């Protein structure tokens, strides 16, 4: 992978060492990691501070202890949500990068991935092979199937519903995307009902194991709270990280990735380089769709039951994440997903704790997510990572 040219005087030109390439792959990931640590730390400090302040007002429970006991679980939950939003957000941001267009059907591409995984589990169950299927192999195969189907589907939607409208006024493809979103919801519903899967589909998997104990934290006095990670959450996080590494490699190092960036920066000029712009756009949909499909499978495994409308909310939140990170910016989508995921997890858990359950958190998490969208649009339209123009694809 080393590209170099030597001149008469023997100087190396344009050398790309392994080191540069590794930097190109892991640099953005490091940034993501920093946001993971940063979000977790800051939000933890905030809730601990709140717990301190509010401690006097409560006699029923020790608020500080209660806060600390659930903290590790909340952080893990934040990571899972964060990587979920990040993987979906990449699909929005990549498509926006090359077309300046929000693919509102992307949530449904994600949902289809979940159904493909569930269908795979179901068909194994029907053949009585599921219980003995190697769990890791199951996860890998389900993800691959979800990626293929969702990727191809995303590519088809572009070909059928967006490409013919490429030169139409900007609102027209947007409407088409919303139509595509509704169409896919109902199509999947129809197929699910017709094939006897039902409306609410259980995502069956081989036994994936229980929780892995991680450690203990002191919660005051000589008491300790032990915490663990659910194996499904672990699968989610590991798979998402592998995909993000793969995507960074693809975008920053390969010829295809450079062509995608070139098309995103200047479509007409990219075509003057001999780049087939239509093909690159199709491949962008393929890649974004495949990531969305994989996220769908992982989501299905984690939540256990899915229906044809599960793509809507995660899709909208992932879109929020993409805007949060600066739409069009790939690292930004990952970072935005992480930050939003953590915020949601903390709001969902602690709002209820601090208000004696008056605000049962899960619903308020959505309010938090969309308040963020509105705040960003008002105060920082170019996203967390600053000028989208300097960091875009």
């Amino acid at each position, binding site marked *: 992978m080393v*590209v*170099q*040219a*030597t*001149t008469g005087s023997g*100087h190396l*030109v*344009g050398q*790309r060492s392994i080191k540069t390439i590794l930097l190109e792959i892991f640099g953005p990931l490091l940034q993501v990691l920093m946001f993971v640590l940063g979000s977790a730390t800051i939000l933890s400090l905030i809730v601990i501070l709140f717990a301190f302040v509010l401690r006097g007002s409560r006699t029923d429970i020790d608020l500080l202890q209660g806060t600390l006991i659930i903290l590790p679980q909340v952080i893990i939950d934040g990571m899972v949500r964060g990587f979920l939003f990040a993987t979906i957000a990449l699909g929005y941001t990549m498509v926006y990068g090359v077309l300046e267009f929000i693919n509102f059907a992307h949530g449904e591409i994600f949902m289809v991935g979940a159904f493909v995984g569930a269908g795979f589990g179901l068909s194994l169950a029907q053949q009585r092979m599921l219980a003995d299927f190697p769990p890791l192999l199951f996860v890998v195969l389900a993800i691959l199937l979800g990626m293929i189907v969702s990727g191809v589907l995303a590519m088809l939607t572009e070909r059928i519903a967006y490409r013919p409208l490429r030169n139409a006024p900007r609102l027209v493809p947007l409407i088409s995307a919303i139509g595509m979103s509704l169409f896919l919801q109902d199509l999947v519903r129809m197929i699910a009902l017709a094939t006897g899967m039902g409306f609410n589909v259980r995502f069956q998997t081989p036994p994936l194991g229980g929780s892995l104990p991680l450690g203990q934290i002191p919660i005051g006095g000589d008491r300790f709270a032990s915490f663990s990670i659910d194996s499904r959450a672990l699968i989610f996080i590991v798979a998402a990280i592998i995909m993000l590494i793969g995507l960074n490699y693809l975008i920053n190092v390969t*010829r295809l990735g*450079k*062509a995608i*960036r*070139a098309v995103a*920066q*200047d479509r*007409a*000029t*990219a*075509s*003057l*380089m*001999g*780049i*087939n*712009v239509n093909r690159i756009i199709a491949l962008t949909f393929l890649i974004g769709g495949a990531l969305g499909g994989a996220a769908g499978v992982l989501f299905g495994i984690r939540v256990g039951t899915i229906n044809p409308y599960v793509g809507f909310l995660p899709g909208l939140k992932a879109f929020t994440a993409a805007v949060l990170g600066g739409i069009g910016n790939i690292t930004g989508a990952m970072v935005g997903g992480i930050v939003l995921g953590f915020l949601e997890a903390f709001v969902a858990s602690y709002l209820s704790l601090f208000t004696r359950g008056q605000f049962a958190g899960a619903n308020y998490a959505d309010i938090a997510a969309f308040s963020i969208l509105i705040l960003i649009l008002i105060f920082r339209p170019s996203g967390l990572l600053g000028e989208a123009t*300097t*960091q*875009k*694809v």
Partner: protein
Amino acid sequence: MALLELTNVHTYYGQIHALKGISLTVDQGEIVTLIGSNGAGKSTTLRTISGLLTPRQGQVTLAGRRIDRVPPHTIVNLGISQSPEGRRIFPRLTVLENLEMGAYIHSTHSPEFRADLDRVMTLFPRLRERVKQKGGTLSGGEQQMLAIGRALMARPKVLLLDEPSMGLAPVIVEQIFDIIKDINQQGTTILLVEQNALMALAIAHRGYVLQSGKIVLEDTAASLQSNEMVQKAYLGLD
């Protein structure tokens, strides 16, 4: 037979009739220049040749093969590259990545790619020091060098240059024109669009004068230089 030939080409932007029957030829090994004032249709002509615009009437041929319905990326493969108006460097790709995009139709793992890279770096030594710099942070002159270098990376038979002197200091303009001449002498046929008619005619073999989408004059560069109308309108001489 001419290497590149336009016959009665009409190109429109929607209702706007930008090229009104352009016919011109570029022979193997020539530098041909296209001069004319703002809005005459020079860039439109190059865009039509590159396939970014499709003529409504007339035809474009490369070595006898019709290319006026061929998409731009295929035209690059057939041997025509363009350094477009305004340079159009990919701002967030590095200099090296921009050059790699120029060589998109070739493998970047081949020895030829290294040779091409070396040739561009030798023509434009400034680019050598800036391989890792982002294209958008280069100076105007450096961007122009990169745009020409990038177009060369495709190893074109015909190189289309749209106003390579635009916005550059006189010293740099001279350098660029010297290099254009070198590139031609190394075997690349060139169609050069210029506002700077004086410099363009100095290095070109032949030239065309374009006015409101029509060719009003064509001749050898030497005759155009001494043509009274050209002197008045484009060379600033009285």
